[in-house]
């Protein structure tokens, strides 16, 4: 069997493995919570247990998978678009935009009845989504389009820093929202219900379809911008579409679960360490990997100090940071395959 076939088999194995892991974690996630395993056994007899498992635990677990899948997808797209292995989905300022949206929404609750009514209808999720997408649009405006990748990156950093500063200012002016803001910024699947899952799944399908159609562009970009243009790829249009995918996927994930670190950064790296494939398969596998990562972290967050909860973002940072440390350690002792 040639080396290429081996890579393809590795990719397929990884895909199947991740799907199986998702199923296992789904079952485990349904069993973990403030009450423990016995709730699952009582599902048929006790209506309260049924409600807890069906209305709370299952949607949280499925929601964690969906959010992780969206972040993994966005991470793979970001790393391909910016040709930088350190890129993550929040590069274009979407994280700070979402934080500002939530801070403003929390701050305006209770200020006036009209404001409160509108805010309840919009919801914190709507505010976070609007903030994330708004920040990306601001970045595009600042960079005057998607022509120059470096300018886009720089504009994204600027927007992220400035909006983040405004969010911190809002927290200082209205200290009652500080704790809720911190909970949002560290991430949690607390109130993810079935409607949120359906929304995230729908957006995942759209983004995955778009990204898969644009995977050739990402492959071509890895050869260099001049070469990609010479191959006949419509780069500006593809870049706009990829940025749109990035904004949509990140906004949807952040709106439901808050700012979860490392999943978007680590998922593509984890996939690449097992199987080297083109972007078409990489984006899909990265999405599956992100889903599994976040499901596992969410389960741990709910289980470690039950009935209290840890913020999911803390666990993903610890797990993701640990993985990156191990990766660095492995690369500092290069294998024989690496030649100068």
């Amino acid at each position, binding site marked *: 069997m040639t080396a290429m076939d081996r890579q393809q088999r590795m990719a397929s194995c990884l895909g199947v493995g991740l799907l199986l892991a998702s199923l296992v974690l789904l079952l485990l996630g349904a069993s973990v919570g403030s009450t423990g395993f016995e709730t699952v056994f009582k599902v048929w007899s006790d209506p309260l247990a049924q409600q807890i498992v069906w209305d709370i635990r299952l949607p949280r677990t499925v929601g964690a998978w969906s959010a992780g899948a969206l972040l993994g997808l966005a991470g793979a797209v970001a790393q391909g678009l910016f040709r930088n292995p350190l890129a993550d989905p929040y590069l274009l300022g979407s994280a700070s935009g979402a934080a500002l949206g939530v801070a403003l929404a929390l701050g305006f609750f209770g200020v006036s009845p009209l404001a409160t009514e509108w805010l309840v209808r919009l919801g914190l999720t709507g505010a976070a989504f609007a903030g994330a997408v708004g920040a990306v649009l601001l970045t595009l405006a600042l960079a005057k389009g998607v022509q120059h990748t470096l300018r886009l990156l720089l504009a994204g950093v600027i927007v992220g820093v400035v909006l983040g500063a405004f969010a911190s200012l809002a927290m200082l002016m209205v200290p009652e929202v500080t704790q*809720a803001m911190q909970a949002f910024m560290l991430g949690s699947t607390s109130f993810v219900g079935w409607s949120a899952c359906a929304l995230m799944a729908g957006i995942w399908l759209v983004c995955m379809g778009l990204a898969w159609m644009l995977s050739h562009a990402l492959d071509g970009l890895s050869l260099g911008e001049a070469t990609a243009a010479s191959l006949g790829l419509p780069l500006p249009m593809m870049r706009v579409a990829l940025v749109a995918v990035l904004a949509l996927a990140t906004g949807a994930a952040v709106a439901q679960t808050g700012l979860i670190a490392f999943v978007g950064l680590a998922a593509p790296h984890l996939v690449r360490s097992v199987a080297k494939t083109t972007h078409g398969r990489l984006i899909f596998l990265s999405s599956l990997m992100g889903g599994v990562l976040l499901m596992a972290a969410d389960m741990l967050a709910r289980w470690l100090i039950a009935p*209290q909860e840890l913020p999911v973002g803390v666990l993903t940072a610890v797990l993701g940071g640990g993985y990156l440390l191990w990766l660095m350690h492995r690369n500092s002792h290069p294998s024989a395959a690496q030649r100068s």
Partner: protein
Amino acid sequence: MKKSCPRLLLCLAAVSCLASAAQAWQIADDRGVWVTFSQPPQRIVSLLPSLTETVCELGQCQRLVGVDRYSNFPDSVRNLPQVGGGLDPNIEAIVALQPDLVLMATSSRVAEQLHSLGLKVMALEPKNHADVRRILEKIAQVLEVPDAQRVWRVIDAAVSAAAQSLPASTKKTRVYFEVNGAPYAAGESSFIGETLTRLGVRNIVPVSLGPFPKINPEFVVRANPDVIMVGDRNYSGLQGRPGWAGIRAIKERRVCVFTPAQSDVVVRPGPRMAQGARIMAQCLLDQAL
């Protein structure tokens, strides 16, 4: 006769020295730092709303020359110059007011800076009912206000009165107090939890979880409280939360939403705790079966 005069003068001088020495006293604040006073402070800057209210409760509002931006009771303090927040005070503004005492929370980091500028700083932070009493008496000692115990007895009696105003049927009510939407709950060991205990109702969050735990929402569903109390600022539509529609308090619409003014009173561990108890008691009466 002529020989006893100088001896008498010496005795008088000795007695007056002792008398003036006895007038200087030292008090330890919550950090364990001893602060010395030779006379009661007349110009006070307060950087914590509950301490502002304590000073005014002792009838010494006129001694306040500056407060933080979050102190809003009584109304007279709103006319005082504001010197920033508790965590980010304006040092220059404080020094410009020339206070002889600055009251602040223990979690503030500016104590060292103010002390090095020559100001007297006391860090006090009431976190539960016992703290409110202790700090009331401590500030009374500093300000040389007599009979602080009487002030406390009035407050305490008012809390008991609020508890007695509730019929016996409310004693079995199980309450969930949500501090913010993360969700953070007020446990039994928090200030709010203690007030609820004094009112005789049960808190679904036990002591073992600490004062302000970040709980799993399904815990609330399983505990099935009869009444939910939440501040207006954090009321973001409880019905929409997955699985919460079946909670008794939500099915029967027994949710108390406090206005920001009411939240201030209920949440702040200060001398208005009786009013806070009355607010919560009113909520329980309104939502009674």
